[in-house]
């Protein structure tokens, strides 16, 4: 059987199982098992299981539950509320101040939380009522929360980067540091957009009353204290990585300790919260690990059958040149992102695309940043963008899912613009990791 036919059969059976509702992890595993048996007989099964076992010994994989655990502790500690009130006190006076505060809060939270989902819910609960009460128009209020939530994909410690680094075989520390500037660029563009719109049409975002915006300076300084501990956690995690003191796994351990201290300082480290954080971590991590096992087995079988080489040869011989291939990869990621979860896309496409891109002379770290930017797009884009569904869970009933998706378009445009900027100027992502310590 030729590899073209094998590829087709594998793709059809995989997609078929997914559409029928089998979870991604098991669909990948099952297709791997069936094709391993068909192509190589019983020894093929050993290949599948050995792939799983190899992953069990990977010391970087442990960083995943650690960063998930860190996020779960922080999520329950009420730190988002603290940050939001402090930022509002200081930045609330600018046009669209509350929406700007949402973006700043999201950015700071993104620097502590590496998993999507948590933030949109937390910030939705804290900031949405404040904005609606002030009379902000729905689309301005909703869009900034969804867009801000996506930043945790790009800004370290993003779990997406850990899994990309593992799949592509590149340094996770470098990926983390490379995500900082593009993340800040995107956040600045969001802020600029909000301020300009609010300035052009003040009715969109009524200003705070004089009493609200003129807090006594002592009170403002007191609120600033809220930011001290979270900032310390951020600097401990990112600083130790940047300076080369800690591996990603160790940085994750430091992050958990920091998160626990921050929660303790807020007297939120009680038994219920710990137990909930553990439960959430166990379930999320089990899901991520099993996805990793299944897709690793699938890619293993496919590579052995010669499929990976075939696609790579096809892509490298592509008539549009390196940039054409790169843009095609972006397009594939964006389209897949509308339907499949980021981790499925990552685990199934990165082993094929990263070597191709490297061969064509592109930096795999930079490609990782581009991947995260694509996944941010998929995080908010209709019809399945998870951000909208998370937010819907905490909005008042008069706000519909359509309202949320409508509010997202301008931010989607800014994401595409930033993606284009990073593609044109790779240095924005790459200069910071170049200065790292070992």
């Amino acid at each position, binding site marked *: 059987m030729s590899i073209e036919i094998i590829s087709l059969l594998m793709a059809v059976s995989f997609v078929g*199982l*997914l*559409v*029928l*509702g*089998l*979870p*991604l*992890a*098991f*669909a990948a*595993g*099952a297709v*791997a*098992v069936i094709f*391993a048996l068909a192509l190589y007989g*019983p020894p093929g*099964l*050993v290949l*599948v*299981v050995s792939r*799983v*076992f190899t992953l*069990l*010994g*990977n*010391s970087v*994989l*442990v960083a995943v*539950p*650690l960063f998930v*655990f860190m996020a779960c502790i922080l999520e329950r500690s009420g730190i988002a509320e603290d940050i939001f009130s402090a930022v509002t006190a200081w930045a609330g006076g600018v046009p669209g101040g509350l929406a700007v505060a949402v973006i700043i809060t999201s950015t700071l939270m993104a620097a502590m939380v590496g998993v*999507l*989902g948590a933030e949109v819910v937390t910030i939705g609960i804290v900031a949405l009522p404040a904005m609606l009460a002030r009379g902000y128009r729905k689309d301005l209020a909703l869009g900034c929360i969804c867009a801000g939530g996506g930043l945790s994909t790009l800004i370290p410690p993003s779990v997406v980067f850990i899994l990309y680094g593992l799949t592509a075989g590149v340094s996770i520390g470098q990926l983390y540091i490379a995500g900082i500037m593009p993340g800040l660029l995107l956040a600045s563009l969001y802020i600029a957009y909000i301020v300009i719109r609010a300035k052009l049409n003040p009715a969109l975002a009524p200003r705070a009353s004089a009493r609200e915006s003129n807090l006594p300076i002592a009170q403002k300084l007191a609120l600033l204290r809220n930011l001290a501990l979270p900032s310390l956690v951020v600097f401990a995690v990112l600083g130790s990585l940047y300076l080369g003191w800690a591996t990603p*796994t*160790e940085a994750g*351990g*430091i992050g*958990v*300790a920091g998160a626990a201290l921050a929660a303790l300082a807020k007297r939120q480290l009680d038994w219920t919260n*710990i137990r909930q954080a*553990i*439960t959430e*971590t*166990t*379930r*999320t991590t*089990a*899901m991520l*690990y*099993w*996805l990793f*096992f*299944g897709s690793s087995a699938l890619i293993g079988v496919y590579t052995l059958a010669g499929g990976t080489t075939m696609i790579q040869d096809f892509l490298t011989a592509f008539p549009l040149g390196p940039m054409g291939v790169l843009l095609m990869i972006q397009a594939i990621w964006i389209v897949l992102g509308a*339907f*499949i*979860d980021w*981790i*499925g896309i990552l685990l199934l496409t990165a082993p094929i695309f990263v070597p191709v891109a490297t061969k064509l002379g592109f930096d795999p770290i930079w490609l990782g940043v581009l991947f995260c930017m694509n996944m941010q797009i998929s995080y908010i884009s209709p019809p399945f963008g*998870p951000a909208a569904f998370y937010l819907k869970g905490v909005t008042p009933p008069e706000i519909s899912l359509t309202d949320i998706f409508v509010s997202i378009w301008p931010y989607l445009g800014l994401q595409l613009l930033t993606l284009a900027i990073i593609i044109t100027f790779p240095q924005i992502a790459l200069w910071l990791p170049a200065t790292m310590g070992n």
Partner: protein
Amino acid sequence: MTPPIGQTERSTGHSPALSAYCRFVDGLNDRLGWLLGPMIVFVSAAIVYEVVSRGMFRSATTWVNESVVYGSSAVYLLVGGYALLHRRHVRIDLLFGVISPRIARAFDLAVLPFLIAYALALMIAGGQLAWASFLQGEGTGSPWNPRIWPVKACIPLAGLLLALQAFSNLFRDLGLAPSRTEDSDGTGRR
């Protein structure tokens, strides 16, 4: 942890035997998840200890890294069934908004053999690998060099737990056993 069920089984078409099976399997996986989950606390503590001892005394421990890596891998392998119990494995709900529950159940039945095939492969090939490793007394190859077969033995065990849970979920979905009344566990993160 298992929700109170019992008298609801009268006149609903639930099979007592299958209901008991579901209650047993759900209880097993739920307790396993509850029991193994807190390991993350020890993993975090061990890593912080390692970082501190390296920073302050310049002495890296040999055992922390390996036990943390293999320990957590084994745990998250074993709780695959637990995550399935709480329906946390990511799937694509492209069709599930538009098809009737009857067709959805037919789909569930159609895909089950594939999940079982994967679980069986993990059990059979994983069992062979673990047994061979046990007979050889295979180590990890590090200076500490602990025996590796207990970790390998988790692969077939995890396959079994997963298969058991898949049947339990199916029985409950098909109405052969009462549905789990709990749903307050932070529902479907994509």
